[in-house]
């Protein structure tokens, strides 16, 4: 009688726990590896994970159940209890060695299959090639066949495979867009490969997954998957040189930018700014974010950034506009106006 009530209580507690976990998982998590996946690579990885998790859950309940049962069932009633002295059992030992081995072998087969199927990088004219360079703390994407260079926000056409060559110029990073594909480390001195494709349009969030010092947390990225026509239009726009503003703050800002040290690090095609250290700014205003996809591309954020970048992003290699480059707040506003014109 009493035992039944306890069991019911335990059961309701357990189901309550499950409910809490499930609701927690269902909340909006844009880097979730389990829900709303955007492409076949991530799905292939999930399709392998799900049955493994199920098997693990079953084993978990069986073994923990046996332990908890044993703990409750075999409690000493008195100090004088003398249990039967069992030293072992050969059949049992062989059984519980073989059963896990068989289960693991069963998991190993599809695992190896998926490893090899993910390792065969697609090629051909229908593949979008991207050369990725990781730096502390942002990403550069070059599309060698399309003549496009951009940073942090990668545009890809829906349904096409994107084959990425990953290189690092400083320390080890790891490229990760959870809803599209698992991680690929980016290691100096090596070229690694990663491919994925998206079959759902949208903006996919990601970030660097290998510790890379001070602003590791601020090395984020986005992948924007869009229909082919939209992607083609984006490419056309990206290929064009920057258009010089004809007057107002923006023109003044362009002057200031080109006279200052900005040009040693940044490229703005169509001007003499041709630095290769920082992100290409030719179409920077076409991005939603900046500085490792960390900050929204807004006037306020840009003013803060140009005034004092390291204060916003620890370790940022760009100097402080006010203190190091001796810009006035008005200069900063003008430069920001120019940046905002670089659509």
């Amino acid at each position, binding site marked *: 009688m009493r035992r039944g009530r306890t069991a019911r209580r335990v059961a309701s507690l357990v189901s309550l726990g499950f409910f809490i*976990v499930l609701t*927690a998982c269902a909340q*909006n*998590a*844009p*880097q*979730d*590896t*389990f829900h709303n996946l955007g492409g076949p690579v991530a799905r292939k*990885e999930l399709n392998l*994970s799900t049955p*493994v998790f199920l098997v*693990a859950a079953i*084993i*978990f309940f069986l*073994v923990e159940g046996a*332990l*908890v049962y*044993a*703990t409750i069932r*075999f*409690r*000493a009633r008195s100090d004088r*209890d003398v*249990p039967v*002295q*069992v030293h*072992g*059992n050969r059949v*049992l*030992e062989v059984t*519980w*060695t073989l059963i896990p081995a068989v289960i*693991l072998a069963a*998991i190993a087969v599809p*695992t*190896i299959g*998926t490893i*090899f199927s993910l390792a065969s990088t697609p090629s051909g004219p229908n593949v979008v090639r991207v050369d990725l360079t990781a730096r502390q703390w942002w990403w550069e994407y070059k599309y060698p066949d399309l003549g496009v260079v951009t940073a942090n926000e990668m545009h890809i056409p829906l349904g096409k495979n994107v084959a990425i060559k990953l290189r690092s110029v*400083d*320390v*080890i990073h*790891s490229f990760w867009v*959870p809803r599209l594909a698992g*991680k*690929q*480390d980016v*290691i*100096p001195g*090596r070229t*690694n490969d990663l491919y994925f494709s998206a079959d759902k349009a949208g903006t996919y969030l990601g970030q660097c*997954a*290998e*510790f890379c*010092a001070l*602003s*590791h*947390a601020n090395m984020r990225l986005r992948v924007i998957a869009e229909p082919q026509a939209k992607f083609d239009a984006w490419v056309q726009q990206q290929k064009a040189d920057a258009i010089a503003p004809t007057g107002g703050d923006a023109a003044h800002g362009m002057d200031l930018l080109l006279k200052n040290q900005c040009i040693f690090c940044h490229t703005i095609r169509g001007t003499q700014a041709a630095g290769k250290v920082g992100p290409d700014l030719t179409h920077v205003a076409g991005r939603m974010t900046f500085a490792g996809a960390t900050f929204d591309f807004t006037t306020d954020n840009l003013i803060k950034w140009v005034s004092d970048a390291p204060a916003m992003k*620890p*370790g940022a290699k760009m100097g402080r506009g006010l203190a190091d480059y001796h810009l006035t707040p008005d200069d900063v506003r003008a430069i920001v106006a120019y940046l905002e014109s670089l659509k």
Partner: protein
Amino acid sequence: MDAAIETRPGVFKRPTATTGAWSWFSTVDHKKIGILYGATAILFFVVGGIEALLIRLQLAKPDGNVLSPSAYNQAFTMHGITMIFLVVMPLGAAFANYLLPLMIGARDVAFPRLNAFSYWVFALAGIFIYSSFFLGGAPNGGWFGYAPLSTKAFSPGHNMDFYALGLLILGVASTASAVNLLVTVVNMRAPGMSLMRMPVFVWMVFVVQFLLVFALPVLTVGLIQLIFDRLMGTNFFNATKGGDPLLWQHLFWLFGHPEVYILILPAMGIVSEVLPTFSRKPLFGYPVVVFSGIAIGFMGWGVWAHHMFATGLGPVANSAFAVSTMFIAVPTGVKVFNWTATMWGGSLRLKTPMLFSIGFVTMFIIGGLSGVTHAVVPSDYQQTDTYYIVAHFHYVLFGGAMFGLFSGVYYWWPKVFGKLLNERVGKLHFWLMLIGFNLTFAPFHILGLQGMVRRTYTYPKGRGWDGWNFVSTVGAFVIALSLLVFFYNVIVTRRRGAVAGNDPWDARTIEWTTSSPPPEYNFAEIPVIHSVDDFWHRKYVEDKEGRLVRVPSGGADEEEHDRGSGVTDGHGDDHHAIHMPSPSYFPLLAAIGMPIFAYGLIYSRILIAAGALIMLTGLYGWALEPGSE
């Protein structure tokens, strides 16, 4: 002999005291050294715990600003270094040092002064690493110290010098200790104690020492290359000059994975002692449990690249390491099944040590199962470097190793200090710790699968991570509270704890035959061993149905049995005539030279010379003084 001592100059006077504060600096008694290891490790546990609390405060909500990014990087790096090298490893060493000679019926370890040296090198290396906080900043490149981030070009401060040199010195301590314990087990077992009569704890410690002896040199090679790169401008890990950053990862994890078993096997040994004692049944499948431990020790060498699945090793290597990683789960599972079977049909006395051991098994199962999910390489592409991994190894190293070690603390406390830790407070400690542990680390599974990356000092709003991070921070403080309860227990027990007697748990192994705490010489007469769980079989026999029958008129008969079979080693009953090694300052002196030498490598050549001189003086003095006077 007294006259000879008096004629020496002051500082070189041979220490003789075996009690009092100063005796701790010159002791060569394995029991005192064990206590020193334990106390130092607990101290570092508190420090590493404070670092953990700071990390959790910082991450309690998005865009936290409790720590600066630089302070955060130091905190998580030092938390890892501390918990692995300065807490779990030395706690294992503490138990091994104190118990191993007692459990095999020896009077001390094989090389008592080397033992003291190991401890002092460890303690001073810990202080050396922590001194970096006051000398410009602690290590900040992660406990794994991945090159090239850890090289001078990307970590120009001294932070990572302290990392590389500190770990190198710690390696000396562990290697010396490992050699010592290996020789002890091989050569100093009591008569009759064949290998397959050794307690499982001794077996697991024995396996761990082999792992240490073989794994540490691999780390040492990597560390020396890193130090050369940092201090002398070599290019082992510099890709722009033809070096290879992945070389570091291979070396580090070839050490690092056996290291995981170095951390967990002693706890598994403890659990294998506690479960039978409190179930009043022998360990189910003793030879299988021992063999599983050995198998884990071997297989632990073939799985290191599962830390590197995302580095681009290629499908063949990834498949091979996936399979080896999966199959290391087999002997691990076998152990869990045997522990469960040990409890099955027993008469379980749920005292605090038993609760912690059951806690170990239940939590370790979770860590083991999540470990198998990492072995599924394509899943690991998603999981690696996320909080899912952090959840996994905390279930193994905290839910596993620390619960096991606390089980050992409660189990052997009465043997070491003569008083039983309070049961009610102990149970409160256990339940708080179990709840706090799961509150802290269970949410990490979900956070990781929701894409939360490790080692980030902050995270933005809108990623869906806020709630579980907050829960986890609350859990961390519940763990802290449980530790306060433990320390309260220690104080209460010291003041008015119940006197333990020789054998408070009705235990199975021979360390419980001697007094609590044991005399300096451990056993008045070296015991003769007739079976596994020898002490138990002196107290009980089994009838035809396998039922226990207490040996009639236990105590008296026991002693007679003891005396009848004891080996007297020529000293008869005169305990004071037992020959024990004399205390010595030289191990401490030799150890002091090491961190000074290391400071010298960072700061000045004079210190190198001074450190070397002190070390040599210590070693010469050590070599020239007789083992005992």
